[in-house]
């Protein structure tokens, strides 16, 4: 979305129309080997408790990956490491082949193309639904630009399109705080999508949703695979079965099993972890 950007220079129109200006400015995502996320030997401890223990995980470009595991397996901590909220004690985390996530701030990581949806839906409750999307929309993130920013027609179209996609067109001018729980979840997903991230991290996207909402959310997420790489953390097995894709089982901060849902469910170690407690 080049029109959303209001950088005054106006140069580099080829790059701009390709929507690549920011990527070029901040280091290009290099996923030429087909892998978008490399986590290798990641260890994180909290007061002696090992939340992550030599975790190694790769996510391919365009892949839809589900991560499951019992409480305390380290799923959310893994998200925190990827998004820069928590720094690992050891191990490496790379976005593509070149970007070292352990050395970047939360904002830089988000800017580089990793979007995160929190477990509890976090939207700007006092801003309208439209404004929530406007702030999330891919554009120049600097103060100077924000002081003079004006929504272009392209940007309005993009927001309108997203409002329809997440079925909130009717609610555009209402404060986001008045939305239902499920609608907030969607709005947050919409906010992620208009950032045009390469990698989406969704932490329990259907928590607290009705069956109908869950089904529609599954459709929505499945439709993202291919265009984006998506990592979904979820408890709901039915939901994961509906999404398809490869499943990684975490336990005690490390990968226990990886494969299709059937293969993973048949794995005796997984059965033990889930049923043995």
């Amino acid at each position, binding site marked *: 979305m080049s029109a959303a950007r*209001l950088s005054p220079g106006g140069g580099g129109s080829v790059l701009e129309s390709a929507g690549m200006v920011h990527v070029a400015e901040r280091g290009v995502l290099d996923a030429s080997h087909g892998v978008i996320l490399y986590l290798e030997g990641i260890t994180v401890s909290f007061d002696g408790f090992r939340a992550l223990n030599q975790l190694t995980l790769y996510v391919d470009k365009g892949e839809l990956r589900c991560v499951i595991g019992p409480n305390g397996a380290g799923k959310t901590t893994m998200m925190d490491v990827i998004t820069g909220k928590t720094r690992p004690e050891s191990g490496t985390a790379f976005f593509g082949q070149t970007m070292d996530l352990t050395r970047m701030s*939360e*904002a830089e990581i988000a800017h580089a193309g990793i979007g995160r949806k929190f477990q509890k839906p976090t939207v700007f409750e006092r801003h309208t639904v439209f404004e929530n999307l*406007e*702030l*999330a929309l891919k554009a120049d*993130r600097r103060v100077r630009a924000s*002081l003079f920013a*004006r929504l272009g027609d392209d940007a309005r179209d993009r927001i309108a399109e997203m409002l329809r996609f997440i079925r909130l067109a009717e609610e555009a001018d209402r404060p986001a705080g008045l939305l239902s729980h499920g609608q907030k979840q969607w709005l947050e997903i919409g*906010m992620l999508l208009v950032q045009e991230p390469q990698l989406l991290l969704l932490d329990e996207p259907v928590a607290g949703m009705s069956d109908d909402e869950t089904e529609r959310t599954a459709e929505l997420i499945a439709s993202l695979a291919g265009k984006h790489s998506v990592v979904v953390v979820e408890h709901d097995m039915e939901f994961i079965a509906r999404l398809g894709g490869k499943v990684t089982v975490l336990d005690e901060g490390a990968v226990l099993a990886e494969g299709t849902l059937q293969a993973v469910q048949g794995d005796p170690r997984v059965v033990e972890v889930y049923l043995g407690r």
Partner: protein
Amino acid sequence: MELAIRRQLVPRLIGATPRAGWVALAAFGLVAFVILPALHLLAPAGSRLHVSGYVITVGGKIMCYAIVAVALDLIWGYGGILSLGHGLFFALGGYAFGMYLMRSIGREGVYQADLPDFMVFLDWKSLPWYWRGTDHAPWAFLLVVAVPALLALVFGLFAFRSRIRGVYFSIITQALTFAAMLFFFRNETGFGGNNGFTDFKRIMGFSVTAPATRVVLFVLTAAMLAATLVATRYLVRSKFGRILTAIRDSESRVMFLGYDPLPYKLFAWTVSAVLCAVAGALYVPQVGIINPSEMSPGNSIEIAIWVAVGGRGTLVGAVIGAALVNLAKSWFTAAFPEYWLFFLGLLFILVTRFMPEGVVGLGRRLLGGRPA
């Protein structure tokens, strides 16, 4: 492109303030620029239409406070950053301009020396280096803006980068203004110690006590207040303003959207500090004195009360709050001088308990409008 943005800026500045706001500003301008000055200068002293110098001075003073309140509202109401040290920036602006006023006294002081009286009294032989150039008004204007801006920038950079928030930030700003007060109390600091600066004679060659000078200062203050309201209204209505309120409501969400909150906070913080400093510079020639008590922690807390009374996050509420509380103060400190602080504390408790959105919020509720 740059030029196009500049050209759009004026209509957008105008467009940011709603029609009702412009009507109110026009009415304010009529009173402050025309009616009050005319009644003060032209109506004879005995006539019932005459506006006294006292009214002009108190009005000017309250408008200076109103600018400070709007500045605090920008960062507190919209940015969620409660500063309890804004009196410091106000005082720094006042001191910077006060240096110029002191130098303008020339040899008309008590000791009839080239140096300001307090330096003669301390037996200093020459001006300290930081007084150099302060006899030139443009340099003084620069100091009024630059010194508080620099302090705000450096302080803000460290505080915001360390992610100091909420009550911790408020306490540190209190400590900052308190430390500055102690520093300015010292005679060695070179700002007149506990007496500060006073006994001004002239400003830009005109007598500070002449009615015409007072009216000019009053009109300048009114213009500055109006400009502050229009400019801050533009800021909060821009995308910048929406990001600022987003940082207030959910800072981590803003970061995960790819924004770095630091420059946003820093910009709002520094703008706010500079507005306070300009208000301080306008205040000193009208009141005729600046001393370290302006930096006392209580003064800065009072600023926060003005904003809370008027209504946080409304801009115009800050003006109303500053005016109401200060008018009440004028009356109270004359009628029951020893009870003012108790009343102020009570007012703060009542407002936060029963009128969380201040006078403006109450007005909106009575008129049946939706809450802000």
